[in-house]
């Protein structure tokens, strides 16, 4: 019968329309912003810089190696290296970025920077409700705006952050045992030197840089 197909189609839409009143499955829309769907853990949008401890600038993990700047596909990262050094989380003296800018208007959220970073310093945020009225300055994020605490990272990506922390703790332990072994070797050498008379010079004290506790 001509028109049968059309009637069948109309029955289908009627089923969906009526069904949306009774079945949660059929009503798929959410009344944003009053209602929100649960955030998905792996979501990414713009990069953030992770810092340990309480002081964002002192605890910044970034050592300004500029790998992300080089690898960034749209070239939206801009880094200026410091001339002095500060200790990083294992206590090793490292340079740090005096300037770390990301042009958010250019960034395409591909997270290549996260992948190439050997220091777990740059991660992706999940903040999507962003807007600015300043087209030029407001879209250029500096290191103060980019730095987020490790706690924040744990909040947005708990699984990934736990893995990262475990890896960092392992690295730190390795560095500590290495430092300890080095100190012991130095002490043994010093003891041997002291045992050999007649040089009563003061045994050199092995210097171990104070290990800084990572936040969280």
């Amino acid at each position, binding site marked *: 019968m001509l028109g049968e197909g059309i009637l069948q189609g109309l029955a289908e839409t009627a089923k969906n329309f009526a069904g949306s009143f009774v079945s949660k499955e059929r009503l798929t829309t959410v009344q944003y912003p009053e209602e929100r769907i649960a955030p998905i853990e792996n979501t990414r949008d713009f990069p953030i810089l992770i810092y340990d401890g309480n002081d964002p600038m002192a605890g910044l993990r970034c050592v300004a190696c500029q790998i992300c700047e080089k690898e960034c596909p749209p*070239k939206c990262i801009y880094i200026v290296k410091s001339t002095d050094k500060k200790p990083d989380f294992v206590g090793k003296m490292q340079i740090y970025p005096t300037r770390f800018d990301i042009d958010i208007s250019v960034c395409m959220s591909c997270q290549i920077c996260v992948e190439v970073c050997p220091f777990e310093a740059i991660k992706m945020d999940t903040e999507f409700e962003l807007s600015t009225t300043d087209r030029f300055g407001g879209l250029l994020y500096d290191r103060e705006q980019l730095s987020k605490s490790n706690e924040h990272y744990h909040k947005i990506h708990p699984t990934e952050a736990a893995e990262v922390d475990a890896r960092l703790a392992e690295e730190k332990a390795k560095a500590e045992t290495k430092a300890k072994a080095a100190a012991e070797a130095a002490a043994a050498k010093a003891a041997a030197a002291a045992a050999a008379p007649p040089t009563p010079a003061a045994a050199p004290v092995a210097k171990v840089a104070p290990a800084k506790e990572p936040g969280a």
Partner: protein
Amino acid sequence: MKSAEEILAAIKTALPEAGVELVPNPSPSAQHSLRLDPAHALAVASFLRNDPELALDYCSNATGVDWPGKEITEKVKVTKVVDGVETIVEETVKRVQAGYLEAVYHLYSMKHAHREIAGPVVLRMRTVNRTDQVELPSLTPVWRSAEFQEREIFDLFGIVFTGHPDLRRILMWDGFEDHPMRRDYVDPDDFEYEPTPHDEVLKRAEQHKANTGVTA
């Protein structure tokens, strides 16, 4: 599908006058190619398509490659008469290797698609140089899938395909003059002024402002 060597042998028996040579490919993909003499290219292409054994009826990909001229520095031993004595002197000679443009075609057979699994049959053709003798015969009469792709090669590389039914620019606009995919292409300084954190871009933007008197 047959290997490049077998196809070469088949071409040589069918068209002995066509100068076809094998170009080996050192990469693990081992997709060796056949270089055609532009004068006989159309005949070879028709043979490849019409031969019932080969039946390469599907030209998957056609593209251009730019190989600019290189300056090669060589050390040559020259016999010279110095103070009446013949001595062999090493001299550095600079030689300019002429550049050329290349068109590459990837062929498959849809007729024999399920017979054997193999890579594509690759055809290549070279122009004489990169400036005034850039004509190559169009293979569009044989495989129509090359129509838009050859237009694209003409547009982006500047190879002129003789016998192409509709050789116009395809991606760039008609008044455009250069060929953007050439290695020595310099992009014109006509972009809108946008402040970005990048030195190079900023410098160019400043230069552009100075040149044109355009303010942001």
